[in-house]
């Protein structure tokens, strides 16, 4: 094989998360009490448009979660084992190869042809002058005719044309698919889509899909030739960094909740159901944990992990592994602090449920407590877990940025918006200002958080309008 798959810990958890979501989807579609609120979410145009955006982020993140190592050319090792490069690549890396490899020397502005900082150059006659060196890749294929503005507008037009074509294809495909079930004409179906007279707000979804397709087309047409968001201090493409950060921040937003979920569920339900001593102990546990500043818990988590990695250096021999473990420890740290709120909510809900007739009846019938908890209580508190997970997502993404700023975020060599913002602080002090890293991080992060917030609102309203953020 020319490559070998690598499954990092976070990849494994990502796949687990995916499996859980699929399982939940199937489960929810079979139960009316779960289907009803989802139907309400589905009717909300804003939420569905946001969902399309989230899906785009999600797909990017998933592509970045398929890792492998390429086989090195040349002879195999004695014993016939193939030798693989220690560099771990992802599917996204391969897709973005030009972005990944087009490194300049140092800063360059968006769409620039020349470096941002002047360099001392020795002329052939021995004189030395300061000049802005031509970029190696930025606008490299540009011929003298027309110039940059012309080239960019041509590429943009082409991108627009391609984007519109793809989008139209998607619209038609959707309409056909809808025709199949309903038995109306394609034209009527298209008309209804355009008028927004559908049960599911396809129009809004198609609109946001269109925007995404246009953006992707623009990137595909421009990024090979220009640095759309410029380059950073060591010449890496900022757009690529921002795209690579998607996975990091998605993982933090989701895995932190996933990691703590079993504890919160078990302890919260147990405390609420059993009461008495058990309740006291669990309450004590979470009050104690809750009263310790979360920063300290996170720092302790990360430092102790560093300690472990130093002691077991052999187990972490690639950069990706080290980054990965650090990311997970950050998730655990965030999870430990987020665990408390969920646990408290679950405890309260369980206490309410316990008073319900059907539970009381089950108790009277002598059903074992464990069975009651798993069979009767757990399914009925799942909506709280869902709402909590969705709502805390954007908070976690925002927290990542702050933690990176304090210096306890993800590995400093890992791409994340927090690291980009943190670096941008120094760049804002430059004169002229280097604003593009901050702008890129802002745009990507803002879009994700906004979409997540809109979607979370709809989910909360659908499941439990009384629950507050």
């Amino acid at each position: 094989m020319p490559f070998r798959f690598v499954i990092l810990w976070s990849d494994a958890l990502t796949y687990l998360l995916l499996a859980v979501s699929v399982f939940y989807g199937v489960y929810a579609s079979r139960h009316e009490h779960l289907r009803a609120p989802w139907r309400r979410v589905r009717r909300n145009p804003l939420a569905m448009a946001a969902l399309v955006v989230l899906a785009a982020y999600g797909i990017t993140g998933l592509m970045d979660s398929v890792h492998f190592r390429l086989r090195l050319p040349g002879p195999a090792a004695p014993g016939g084992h193939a030798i693989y490069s220690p560099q771990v690549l992802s599917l996204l890396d391969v897709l973005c190869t030009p972005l990944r490899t087009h490194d300049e020397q140092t800063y360059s502005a968006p769409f620039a042809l020349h470096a941002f900082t002047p360099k001392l150059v020795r002329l052939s006659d021995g004189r030395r002058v300061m000049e802005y060196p031509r970029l190696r890749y930025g606008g490299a294929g540009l011929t003298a005719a027309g110039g940059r503005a012309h080239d960019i507008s041509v590429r943009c037009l082409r991108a627009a044309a391609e984007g519109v074509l793809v989008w139209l294809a998607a619209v038609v495909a959707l309409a056909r698919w809808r025709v199949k079930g309903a038995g109306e004409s394609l034209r009527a179906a298209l008309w209804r889509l355009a008028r927004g007279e559908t049960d599911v707000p396809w129009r809004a979804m198609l609109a946001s899909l269109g925007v995404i397709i246009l953006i992707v087309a623009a990137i595909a047409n421009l990024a090979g030739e220009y640095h759309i968001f410029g380059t950073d201090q060591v010449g890496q493409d900022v757009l690529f960094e921002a795209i690579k950060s998607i996975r990091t921040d998605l993982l933090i937003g989701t895995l932190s909740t996933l990691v703590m979920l079993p504890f919160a569920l078990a302890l919260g339900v147990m405390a609420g159901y059993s009461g008495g001593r058990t309740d006291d102990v669990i309450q004590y546990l979470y009050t104690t944990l809750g009263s310790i500043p979360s920063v300290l818990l996170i720092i302790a988590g990360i430092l102790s992990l560093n300690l472990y990695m130093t002691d077991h250096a052999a187990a972490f021999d690639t950069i990706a592994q080290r980054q990965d473990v650090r990311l997970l420890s950050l998730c655990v740290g965030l999870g430990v602090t987020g665990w408390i709120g969920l646990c408290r909510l679950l405890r309260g809900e369980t206490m309410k449920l316990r008073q319900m007739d059907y539970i009381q009846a089950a108790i009277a019938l002598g059903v074992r407590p464990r069975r009651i908890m798993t069979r009767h209580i757990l399914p009925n508190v799942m909506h709280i877990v869902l709402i909590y997970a969705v709502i805390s997502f954007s908070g976690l993404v925002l927290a990542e940025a702050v933690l990176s700023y304090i210096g306890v975020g993800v590995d400093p060599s890992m791409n994340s918006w927090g690291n980009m913002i943190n670096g941008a602080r120094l760049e804002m002090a430059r004169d002229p200002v280097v604003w593009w890293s901050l702008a890129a991080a802002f745009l990507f992060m803002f879009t994700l958080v906004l979409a997540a917030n809109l979607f979370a609102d709809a989910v909360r309203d659908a499941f439990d309008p009384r629950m507050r953020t």
Partner: protein
Amino acid sequence: MSVPHRFARRAIAAVVLAVILLGLLAAMHAARSEWNDPYPARQADRNILYAAFMERPKRLDPAQAYNENEYTFISEIYEPPFEYQYLLRPYTLVPLTARAMPVPVYLDRHGRRLPADAPARRIAYSVYTIHIRRGIMYQPAPCFARDASGHYLYQSLTRAQLGGIRTIAGFRHTGTRELVAADYVYEIKRLASPWVQSPLFSVLSHYIVGFRRFARTAARIRAALPKVDGRPPYVDLSRIPMAGVKVLGRYTYSITVHGKYPQFLYWMAMPFFAPMPPEADHFFSQPGMKSRDLTLNWYPVGTGPYMLTVNDPNRQMVLERNPNYHPDFYPRRGEPGDAQRGLLKDAGQRLPFIRRVVFSLEREQIPYWDKFLQGYYDESAISTESFNQVVQFSPGGEAELTRSMRAKGIRLVTGVAPSIYYYGFNMLDPVVGGYSQRARRLRRAISIAINIGQYISIFRNGRGLPAQGPLPPGIFGYEPGCAGRDPYIYDCIGGRLRRKPIAVARRLLAEAGYPDGRDARTGKPLLLYYDTYQTGPEAKANMDWMRKEFRKLDIQLVVRATDYNRFQQKMRHGEEQIFSWGWNADYPDPEDFLFLLYGPNSEVGGNGENSANYNNPRYNRLFNRMRNMENGPAREAIIRRMVSMAQRDAPWVWGFYPKEFRLYQAWLHNVKPNYMATNSLKYLRIDPALRARDRRAWNRPVIWPLWVVLALLALLVLPAVLVYRQKERRSPL
């Protein structure tokens, strides 16, 4: 009008009133100074220097302080017997409180006097006799305060007397006293006292006669004394003799060191050898003082030009001119060119010039720089971020200020510091370490691949000189140009140094057994580890760059970043592979750099500063010969041999010697970087009137956007009103 209505109105009125009041207050305040002036308005045209400290200094006790940020303060307060002449280069020691530079008297093993040119191996002891000047007085301090009958006021304090005193200002009376030789001896004894924890303890115990024995005796005596309040009591060190350090008269003392050690005078120019009045030590060791933060570490007592009057490490530290400062004059001699630069205009003037120095806590570089540009700091380094805004290179390759800087009257002063930054290989490591030809080639290949010149241009904007060996410029034995180059790494083309091409490195790597970065025997890719404790955005760029450099050889570099402690631990146990490190000179002598590669000084086993654990017996032998020689051709020849040995073995990737660029505002005079002297504040002079004028011109607030914002807010009200009226009309009533 209903009650809640009235309540709401009142609340709104209160808020509006409060905002208006605050605004008025701010306006009143602003009327007196620039809006963004971080200092009180009344200070605007005073003879005050504004500086900053980035980190709160931990120890201001001269026996303990060893950090640059601590020296910033105590070098102005405590005066060792000698100082570095401010203007002369190479660095020259001159008397400060001493009357003259002492000439050592050499003795043999039996205490017989030897001639000055006696060979080093016959010299068993060197005796330095120092005469200090008369009439030098200490700064006013409560520890010297006496009542009318001459008794100390504060030397036998009771709890009641201490009462509510929390800072040194709580003691109303102060006094002073003349500086005597015994104070110097007292301080050396403090260095030898184990409980003082001086970082120089182990170094000095090798040199000063009777140092170790004194330490043992003092510890024994202290342990035998009864404790006061559960704490060990004050020990009068002047009663315990030290064989090598003697008071010979009111103004004379002598120090005897083992063997011949000419560098000893350099040590004596550091604040470690400043005088310490026993009254101060006793004063602060009284019960109840420490629990009130009243310690020598916080309240220095010295004879220097300044004294510390405000010590609030959370915000501000202030040095005020010492009213008792002894006559001290601006130097009359300088380097050629100093006169043209205006550095001799104040020659012969009484020092210090500046009345007060305000140090503000400034944790980060960015706000510091912005305030410098606004005129609120008087000098600044140049951060990488702002470099291009500040400096451009002339056609001749000279660094000069950009037009916008020159328009502000800002001046640039550059110099190469006696420091070195390097990447070290752990010589104990099985892959990169060792002295085999194979390992040497691997190290050389890496040394060629890591393009230090590029590093300097990316991360330091060209502010550095690629190093060729351990010795930086300005240190005896440094050879500039092609003659001093590392022939394994650099070519000399047309009189200029050029790093060997990457093809050479690849060939070396193949010869070392790793063609194309893969082990020729097993076929496995070569994986190397870079150990670092740096985190944060700069570190990320740095690591990315390092990985890029190694990729040129197809070597995969793994960065192992840990916290500082773990890094130190790794270094102590020799578990690191490649690391970056640096060294600042303690004193301007090649010994202080060459000992970084001296085998017995290894970090592993020797707990020393030789972090690469380089141990070459021939180098070690030469080092021992070189260390106590006088500077001259013989010493130079030995140094040259040592350097070329190190170049051959390549235990370090010679990094760079940092070039320092500093900026000074137009109103600051007499600035010349002196990397050895830390007491340069007293030479500086400012022109407060010019500063006040410039600040006003540079800090006019831009107010119109505020009006725009207000107007926009007002516009926002408009639709609200419209909708409201619409609603009212539509409402059923």
